[in-house]
């Protein structure tokens, strides 16, 4: 999101600080109201996790308690769901890391016929609605008589996680000066040594960020998963079932807070790792 405003500024124009006029009252109010609108629901969830009421969603909560955290801890089905989500995410992320890095290495600085088509292909699983990817995989499994299993889920997840790793890797590769690779070879390192001593260290934090994002994406994904999981229950599927037919509302509230933490932390970490890769907007 690079601003071209800088290039249009004539020499000797006013400095950036002076450009930011005081916003009109109504605008600032509207903007902050929308931002609050975005955050109130999340704050509410956290509040409800401590609500003592267990039969309904009454507001305001009659009393606050931490007992439901202990109850949730005992729920075996929750743990099973977390475990499954974790394993799926781990596998999907690993596959995505390999495929995404290879694709990024091939496409970052080369120009050849079909290059744009390939980057479109990589983005398609995420660009098309989840339901399309879901029903497509379902059709394929059905036509090939493949029964639902752990791997049918992993295959779907890995496919849409590749682009996340790819984007991070490509952004970092494009920022890396090609003369670094040439210098390494010039000094006597062959292709493989150059990859090991120069390219991978440069890619390092971008791959970590991509991996974290892919993990969070897979952990949170529900639509494609419902088409490819059969009877298995990942954490999002568990959550969905609770949404449609609530069993123990307070436990669901607690699990919701746990999910927020589990998906939020890796994404924040990934953002922090790659913040210098995005061109800062003035």
């Amino acid at each position, binding site marked *: 999101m690079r601003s071209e405003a800088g290039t249009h500024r004539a020499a000797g124009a006013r400095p950036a600080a002076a450009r930011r006029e005081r916003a009109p009252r109504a605008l600032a109010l509207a903007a902050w109201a929308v931002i609050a609108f975005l955050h109130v629901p999340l704050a509410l969830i956290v509040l409800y996790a401590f609500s003592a009421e267990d039969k309904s969603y009454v507001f305001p909560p009659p009393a606050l308690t931490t007992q439901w955290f202990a109850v949730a801890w005992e729920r075996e089905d929750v743990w099973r769901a977390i475990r499954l989500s974790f394993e799926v995410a781990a596998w999907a992320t690993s596959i995505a890391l390999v495929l995404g890095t290879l694709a990024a290495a091939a496409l970052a600085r080369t120009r050849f016929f079909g290059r744009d088509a390939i980057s479109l292909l990589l983005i398609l699983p995420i660009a098309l609605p989840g339901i399309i990817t879901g029903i497509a995989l379902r059709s394929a499994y059905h036509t090939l008589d493949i029964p639902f299993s752990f791997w049918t889920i992993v295959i779907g997840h890995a496919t849409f996680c590749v682009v996340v790793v790819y984007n991070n890797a490509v952004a970092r590769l494009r920022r890396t*000066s090609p*003369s*670094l690779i*040439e*210098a*390494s*070879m*010039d*000094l*006597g*390192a*062959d*292709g493989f*040594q150059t990859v090991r*001593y*120069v390219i991978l*260290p*440069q890619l390092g934090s971008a791959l970590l960020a991509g991996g974290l994002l892919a993990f969070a994406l897979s952990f949170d994904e529900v639509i494609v998963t419902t088409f490819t999981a059969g009877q298995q229950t990942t954490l999002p599927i568990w959550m969905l079932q609770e949404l449609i037919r609530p069993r123990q509302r307070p436990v669901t509230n607690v699990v919701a807070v746990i999910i927020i933490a589990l998906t939020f932390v890796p994404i924040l970490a990934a953002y922090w790792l790659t913040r210098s890769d995005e061109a800062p907007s003035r």
Partner: protein
Amino acid sequence: MTAAVTLDSVSCVFGHGASEVRAVDDVHLAIEPGEFFTLLGPSGSGKTTCLRMIGGFTLPTAGRILIGGEDVTLRPPYARPVNTVFQDYALFPHMSIRDNVAYALMVKGVDKPGRGRRADEMLELVRLPGVGDRRPAQLSGGQRQRVALARALISRPQVLLLDEPLGALDLKLREQMQVELKALQRELGITFLFITHDQHEALSMSDRIGVFNSGRLEQVGTPHAVYNTPATRFVAQFVGAANVLEGDAARRLAGADCAMLRPERIALGPERDARASGTVTEVQYFGAFTRLRVASAGSALQVDLPATTIAPSGGATVHLHWDDGAVHRLAAA
């Protein structure tokens, strides 16, 4: 004596058919061992592509490249006894300075204490002792350039390639580095192949210069030869300022179809025996000399007067004198 570097009918062509670009066009070149050789030319003239082909980063589309007599045309950079100092220095940001300098030894399997010692020696050689533990981001441009130099020299290459290494430095630092580079080359005795678009740099530092234009090598010679006896019109005008005379003016003033006359070889004098006379249209003061533009019989001549001569003002009539030897015949364009 085998040439240090030989380019034998080397061409590098990009694209096909109508959009073909002949970056390097049938170049022959032999560089002597221990020489400070400069490739000089404007941007896009092919000098950088030539350097990259010698280094192995670009492969030629025709011809052979020999280093020390060995055919290395298709060899990757890591298999050539050549090292490069890159224009942006290309220091590895994730390694310390010492690890950067010792990199060539590390990939060859030299043990850590041994290569650490050698790296420190090289840093002493380029006059940067004590920075071994720092990171490239913490050094200034001039310091980074010395590190790049040390890193390239540590494995004692037969030839050192320098790709416009002084371009990013400010004037004073650049002049200082020019002197240091020249001294270093003499001390080490390694062949230096230097690229620049700055003709002053080329003239002052080189043993020999190769002048490039649009992919072709137009002249190879000592600075003196290139300056005083340019082979083509391009060389005459690129290296130093030149008055290029053509047609009637050339025949009248120089007795040839095409000739060159350096502005500093023209002096002002009395009307008697003057070669040409004219009116001063422009006067530019450069401190050490003053540059005049003189309109004379249909053409404009540039005249550089030393500071010791009092410069006329604009509009004055002047009479120009020069020796026969000051005129140099050029091949017709």
